[in-house]
Structure formats: C-alpha cells, structure tokens
C-alpha cells in the first residue's frame, strides 16, 4: 500500500503526517507523533484503551485509519489537562483511586469526558453503559464510576 499525506487538527494544533494507507490512527499517534497516552490493549475495538474523539465522537483509534482523518478535529488524552492543571476527571480519578496499573486510564478518561460532555448528569446506569466499551482488569469499575459521579457533581456545581 502507498503512503498518504494527512493534514489534521489534534488537541487544537494543526498537525500533518505521512502514514501508510493501512496504518491505524493509534499507530500514527504513538509511533509517528510521539503521543503515547493512547494505549493499545486489544487492537480490535473491544477494550477502549485507545479511545479518542474525532469531531466530537468517541471512537477507538485502533479502528480508524490515519488516512481517514484529514480535516478532522481530534482530541486525545494529551489535550485533557490544560498546562499543569488537571481536568476534574483526572483529579477525581486520583482522589477516588480509580486506577491501579493505569493502562486503561487514558481511555476511561477520554470516554468519561465524552459521556459528561453529552450528559452532565448521568445516572449510575448511564455511566456504566457509557463506559461499557472500556475494560479495566484492576479496579472492578466501582471506583471509576464513583470518580465520574463525583466529577459530574463538581462540574455541574462549577
């Protein structure tokens, strides 16, 4: 397959890169752009560790080709904290011990942010369904759900 030149926007910055036609966006982010926050868990869209948003839609970057994202607006975990200031979700994940090994965490944070952007006041069930595409083998999910609930409450009050 041939190479493709792509111009796009990632976390508000104009970015251009050359990738193979069959190269997943996740590999572009990690191997070509040095953005290693998005993780590869399964590579088949089951685990959510590579979650990013493209034009506001939550997707698995392992199931998107780099060649597809020309002209899109991509948000990754690297864009979540503003300089040294953590996003409320990041702070609450720490406060509620919602991570152990941490491999799933970037994906959970991106997915949780997408959830709260669409629904600032989700029920526990909505949170669990909203994050069903993210797998965590450490926490048992409960602490993650608590952290998202706390963040939703905090952000609604803000």
């Amino acid at each position: 397959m041939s190479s493709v030149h792509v111009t796009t926007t990632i976390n508000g910055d104009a970015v251009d890169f050359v990738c193979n036609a069959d190269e997943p966006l996740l590999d572009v982010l990690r191997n070509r752009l040095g953005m290693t926050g998005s993780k590869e868990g399964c590579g088949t869209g089951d685990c959510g560790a590579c979650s990013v948003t493209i034009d506001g839609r939550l997707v698995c970057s392992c199931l998107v080709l780099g060649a597809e994202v020309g002209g899109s607006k991509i948000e990754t975990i690297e864009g979540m904290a503003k300089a040294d200031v953590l996003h409320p979700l990041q702070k609450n994940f720490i406060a509620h011990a919602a991570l152990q090994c941490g491999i799933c965490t970037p994906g959970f944070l991106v997915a949780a942010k997408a959830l709260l952007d669409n629904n600032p006041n989700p029920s526990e069930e909505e949170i669990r369904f909203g994050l069903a595409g993210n797998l965590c083998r450490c926490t048992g999910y409960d602490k993650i759900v608590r952290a998202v609930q706390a963040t939703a409450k905090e952000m609604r009050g803000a």
Partner: protein
Amino acid sequence: MLAKEKGLAFVLAGGTDLLVKMKAGMIEPDLVVDIKKIKGMADIKKSATGFRIGAAVPGVALSENAALSKAWPGIVEGANLIGSKQVQGRCTMIGNLCNGSPAADGVPALIAARAKVVVSGPKGKRTIAVEQVPVSPGRTCLKKGEIIEAILLPKRPPRSSDAYLRFIPRTEMDIAVVSAAVNLVLDPKGVVNDARVALGAVAPTILVVADAAKALIGSKLDAAALEKLAAACSAACRPIDDKRGTIEFRTKVAGVLARRAAEIAYRRAGGKL
C-alpha cells in the same frame, strides 16, 4: 473504482469490522475505498416520502436525530445495541447488513419497517428490499463493484411505531441469541391495521413472519392475538444449536420476545393495553 479493481476491494465506512479483519490477517485488500466524504453518504435526510439514511452514517447519529428516533424508535434501538459507545461512533447499519449475519441487531427492525436500500454499481442504481440483501450467513446479493449507498424508510402514517428486543446472556456488548422486531400501524380505535414481524438469529437469514403479522392485524393486541403471534413466531424458527443457545430455547424465546416487542410497539403507537 471498486469495479475496476482486479484484486480484493472493500468499502470502508465505519471500519469496525473491516479494520479488525485486516489486522487479524483474515483479509488483505488491494483496494480500500473510504466512502464517508462522498456526498449524501454521511447524512440523514427527512423528506415527504420518508427518511434517507446514508450508508456511512454512524450508529450514534441515529439516536441524535430526534425526528428519526420519534418515527422509528425500534430501528434506532436496534442499531444502538451494536457494540460500545466507541463502536457506535463509527459503525453503520449498512455495514451491519452487509456482514450478512442472521443475528445482526441493526437489521430486523429495518426489515419490519419495509425499508429499502439503494444499490449503486457499474450498471446504475437499483432499489431493493432490505431482506433481499443477505442471502446466507456472511453472503449478500451484491455483485462486484456494487455498493449500498443509502437506506430508505417509508413515510410514517399516524398511530404507528416499532420496537426491537433481543436476548443476550449479559446486559450489553453482545450479539443476539434471538431477536424480534415488530412494526405496527393502528386505526383511530387502537385496532392494528398493519403489522410486520421480523426475527433474528433463528434461521440462516433474518425471517419475515407473515403469519405472525396476520395474528395481530384486526386485534387490539388481546391475549389471544399475542398467543397466536408467539406461536407463529416459534413455528417459523429454524435455528441452530450452539453454545449461545439451543434450538429449543431460541424457538421459545422468539415467541416471547415478539410478544413483548409487539406490546412496546403498540404502546408507542398510542394504543392502550
């Protein structure tokens, strides 16, 4: 482009199956055509004749469309049962249809709705019923170089609605063991004057059960009509035995789900039970 390629050519819309197969080495395409930026492929249009859903519209865009969700809640709930939010951000109903799975969650409600698809190819365009597309598990009627460009949903009469239910052994992120879609139109008195019932995962392709629809037409969904509906559904089943469900289980549950889906569709259409 697709027709001219001598090797293996694939359409890329959502990519939630294609990219997985490529990664696993199950397929090695010579050509992949991304259709998302072709005009009309990525939007939902409402017109006097109904809805036109482009082939590249992702699942999440269906539930975001208030008019579509109101007119065809069963179609939207079926499509939204596919995969996670991440998968919903990409996966398309046409992709679901063209996989040719009898257990496809996006398809039974389309068939119950009498939806059609526009097939576009080297010889021009043709419009066919959704149920004509899958011919056996994993196979469709599409010829080389042909793609589906859109789904067409008919205009909704007043007092009409639909519903889709599936059985899975967990709460989500699974594929139907049995599923049922029911589409109803009521008269002003609440009597069913049109019905269509489709069952998933109980035969090599999704079934349209005419006898089940007949059982409902003319009724107000009384117990006897529902009983006849369930019996007709079970009688139509030709399922397989596998680790996910036995023949006996699928046959029985098909009737149960159809009955429940009919009740939901009836209430949504404004009927009182």
